C-alpha cells in the first residue's frame, strides 16, 4: 500500500502561503497513492509558471519544459513509451494561452494524458497580469481599466473539440479533486481537469471565499455520456460553478490507434539491421 508520504519531496516549496496549489498537490499525492501508482511509474510533464513547478514537489519522473509546450512534450513521450502514466501540470496561461494550439490538437489526438490545469485566472509567476481565464472587468496592474475581453471557457472548448473526459475541480475540495484525478488517470484518452485555484497574491476577485460561495457538486442525475448536457453545464446559466465530471466517453486513444504500438512501446524495440537492408537497397 502506498501512502502520500511515498511522494514526499524535500525540495523546498516557495508557493505563497494559502495558495490553492497546495490543495492540488495534496490531492495529486492522494490520488496517485489511491491508484497504487508508485513514483517511478509516473511521468509528470509541465510547462512554465507557478503551477508548472508542481512536479518538483513530489516524487515522480518529471519534465519541466517550456511555457506552453507541456502537451507536445507529453505527446512525444507517450508515443515513445505508452506504458507510462503521463500527467500534465499546467496553468491557465500555460495551457490555454501560450499553449492554446497544442491544447486543441492534443484533444483531437485523444492522447492518453491527464491534464491538471491549475486555473487561477491570472498569471502568477509573472506577477499578476490577466490570463485567458481572467473574468471580464478584472483589474490588474497591466489591465488597470479592467480586462475588456471575455474569458476563455476551457470546458466548453474541450467538450466541443470532442474531449473524452472533461471535469472541473476546486483546490479547496481535496477529496473530490483526488477522486477526479483518479478518474482522469483511469480514463483511457485525453482527460482535462480544470482546477479552480485561488491565487492569494494576485487574484483579488476569485478568492477562496468567492469560490466557496459558488462551487456545487454536479447533480447525481447528470448523464456523463450526454455531451449536450455537459455543454449546458459548461456554458452555465447562473452564478453556480458545477464541479465534478462533466463528460466521460471513451474512444481509442492516439496510441491505441497505431498498430505498431500494439505489441510493445517504441522504446522496447531492438535495433534490427535486417529490416533496413531491404529498404536501403531497394
Amino acid at each position, binding site marked *: 500500500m502506498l501512502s502520500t508520504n511515498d511522494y514526499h519531496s524535500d*525540495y523546498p516549496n516557495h508557493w505563497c502561503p494559502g495558495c490553492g496549489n497546495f490543495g492540488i498537490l495534496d490531492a495529486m499525492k492522494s490520488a496517485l497513492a489511491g491508484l497504487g501508482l508508485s*513514483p*517511478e*511509474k*509516473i*511521468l509528470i*510533464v509541465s510547462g*512554465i509558471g507557478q503551477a508548472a*513547478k508542481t*512536479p*518538483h514537489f513530489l*516524487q*515522480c*519522473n*518529471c*519534465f*519541466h*519544459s*517550456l511555457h506552453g*509546450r507541456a*502537451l*507536445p*512534450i*507529453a*505527446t*512525444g*513521450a*507517450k*508515443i*515513445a*513509451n505508452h*506504458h*507510462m*502514466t503521463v500527467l500534465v501540470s499546467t496553468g491557465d496561461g500555460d495551457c490555454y494561452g501560450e499553449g492554446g*494550439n*497544442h491544447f*486543441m*490538437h492534443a484533444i483531437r489526438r485523444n492522447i492518453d494524458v491527464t491534464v491538471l490545469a491549475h486555473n487561477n485566472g491570472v498569471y502568477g509567476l509573472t506577477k499578476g497580469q490577466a490570463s485567458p481565464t481572467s473574468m471580464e472587468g478584472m483589474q490588474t496592474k497591466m489591465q488597470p481599466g479592467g480586462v475588456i475581453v471575455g474569458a476563455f471557457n476551457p470546458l466548453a472548448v474541450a467538450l466541443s473539440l470532442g474531449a473524452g473526459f472533461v471535469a472541473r475541480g476546486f483546490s479547496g475540495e481535496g477529496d473530490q479533486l483526488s477522486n477526479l484525478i483518479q478518474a482522469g488517470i483511469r480514463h483511457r484518452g485525453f482527460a482535462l481537469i480544470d482546477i479552480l485555484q485561488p491565487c492569494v497574491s494576485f487574484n483579488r476577485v476569485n478568492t477562496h471565499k468567492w469560490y466557496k460561495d459558488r462551487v456545487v457538486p454536479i447533480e447525481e442525475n447528470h448523464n456523463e455520456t450526454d455531451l449536450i448536457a455537459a455543454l449546458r453545464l459548461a456554458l452555465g446559466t447562473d452564478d453556480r460553478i458545477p464541479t465534478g465530471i462533466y463528460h466521460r466517453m471513451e474512444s481509442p486513444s492516439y496510441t491505441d490507434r*497505431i498498430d*505498431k*504500438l500494439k505489441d510493445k512501446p*517504441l*522504446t522496447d*524495440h531492438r*535495433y*534490427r*539491421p535486417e*529490416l*533496413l*537492408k*531491404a*529498404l*536501403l*537497397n531497394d
Partner: protein
Amino acid sequence: MTVDISVLIGGEAGQGIQTIGLLMARTCHRAGLYVMVINDFESRIRGGHSFIQLRISDRPVHGPTRKLHMVVALDERTYGLHQPELTEGGLVLISKDHADTMAQHHRYKMVDFGGVAKKAGSSILANTVAAGTSLALLGAPFDLFENILKSTFNQVEEKRLAQNIQAAQYGYTAAEDETFKWSWPWAVTSPKGRLVDGAQAVAFGALAGDCRFSAFYPMSPATGIIQHLVDMAQTVPLVIEQAEDEIAAVNMVIGAAFAGVRAMTATSGGGFSLMSEGLGLAAITETPIVIVNAQRPGPATGLPTRTAQADLQFVIHASQDEFPRFVFAPGTPFEAFSVTARAFELSERFQVPAIILMDQYLNDSLFVAEESFEAPETVTSYTAADDLENPVGYRRYAFTDSGISPRALPCKGPALVKVCSDEHDEEGHITEDADTRDAMVAKRFAKVAAMRKEIRPPEVIHAGSDILLVSWGSMRGAMEEAVNQLRADDINCGGVHVVDLWPFPDTALSEILEKVTQFFVVEQNQSAQLGQLIRQQTGCQYTDAVLKYNGRPMSAGEITDAIKTKLR
C-alpha cells in the same frame, strides 16, 4: 569519346515534366551512364513555368551546367526562356500546337506529343512520347527504354503498360527523320550505384541512425524527407506524426527522445525559427534530438521552392544564450546519408542537439550515388537503464569530467528522472544558485573537447595548389568541377569542402588555408557566411567570395568565370 549532354524539359506545373525527366534519367542510369536531374519549379500546383534539367555523362557529374544541348518544350514559354542557353547546333523538340509562333533560330523538331499520345490510347501518355523521342535522338536503344517502362509500371495494370510501350514506340518513330548532333553509340553496361535525391538519402540515414519517432509540419523543401520516411516506415518501428505547428513538432521530438527513442524533425528556415526555443530546451535538458533544416531563400516566406545556403550563421547561433551543438552540411546524397546516421549517434552520445543543413537543390535533385548505403550492424545505446549503481540516489545532471551524465530513462527502472528547462542542480531541480549555474554551464561546455574530436576535417582536392576554392554543403559538386575546369585552364587551383561545421574545424582549416596565397569561398548567400566564420574562427581572411542568392543552384561555369575575373 566523352559524353556530357544537358537536356532541359520545360512546361507548366502539372504537365508531367518530372515524369519525362525521371524516365529518361532511369534509362540513362540503367545504361551505365552518370546522370543528374535538377528540379526547378514554382510554388504553385498548376500553370507557370517549371523545368527539369537532365545532365547525362559517362563521367561522374555532381552539379548543374549552363549549356543546353536539347530543349524539350511542352509549351512556348519554355522555348522563349531557354533558347538563349542552347549551345550552337542544339535541338528543340516542341509540340505542334506551338510551332507557328516560334522563332526559328535553332534546329527544331515538331512532335505533336499530345496527338501521338492519343493514338496510343490517351493524351496522358504525352510524357512517354516525349521521353521516347528524346531518348531516340540521344541514341538510346529502344529495348532499354522499354525495360524501364516495364519496371516503372509493373505495379499497374497491363493495359497501361502496353499503352506506354506503344506511346514510347510512337515517340521513337517520330524521331526517325531527325538527328541530334551529339548522339553517341550507347554501350550498355551495368548501372553505376543508385539514383537518389538528397531527401531520400536523409531518410535512409535516419533509418540507419535508428530513428523511431519523427514529428513534422509540412514546409518546402523539407517535406520530401518526411515523405520518404513515411514511405519506408511500414516495416520498421518508426512512428511519424504531423504536428499542429513546428513548435509542437520539435517539442514532440524532445518528449520522445527524453522517453528513450531516437527522434528527429525536418523543416525549412521558417519552421526552424519557430523551433529555436525548443532547440534551447533540448540543449539545457541535454536531450538528444536531430533537426534537419532544408534551406530555402528567405527571409520569412522567401522563395519557397528554391535553394539557398543562408542559414549557416543562424543555426550555429539559434536560440538564446550559448550551448554546444553539432552542425553538419552534407554535399552529396551519400554524405547526407552518412551524416544523418552520424548525427543521431553523436547527438545521443553527447546528449546535445544536432542540426543538419540541407537545401532545396540537394534535397530535390537526383544524383547517382556510387557508394553503398549500409545500415550499421549495431547501434549503441548510451542510456543507463539497468546498470545504475544507486538508482534511488540518481541525479540526471550529475557532474562528471566529460560533462556527460549517465542518462536514465523515465519509467524504465527505479531511478527517478527529473529534467528541467530552468537552470537546475544535479538532481534536475530548479536552482538560482550562482555556483551551480557556473558549474552547469561548465558541465555543458565540458563536452566540447570530445565533440571536437568527432568533427571530421574538411576534404581537400589538389592539395598543395596556390589557390583554393572553399565550399560547404551542396556546393561541393559545382566547386569541385570548377576546380577541375580552372586546372584545365592552367590555374593552379585546389578545393576544400566543409561538411562538419560545428564545433568548427578551426585547426584543420587553418592548417589548410595558411598554406595558400589566396582562397575564395563559394556559397549560396549574400554575405559569405562561411568566409566570415573562417575569419572569426581561424583569423584567415578569404581573398574574395563567389556568391549567388537568386534561389537557383550555382554551376561550375559560373564559379569558373567569377574566379577568372577575380584573378585578373
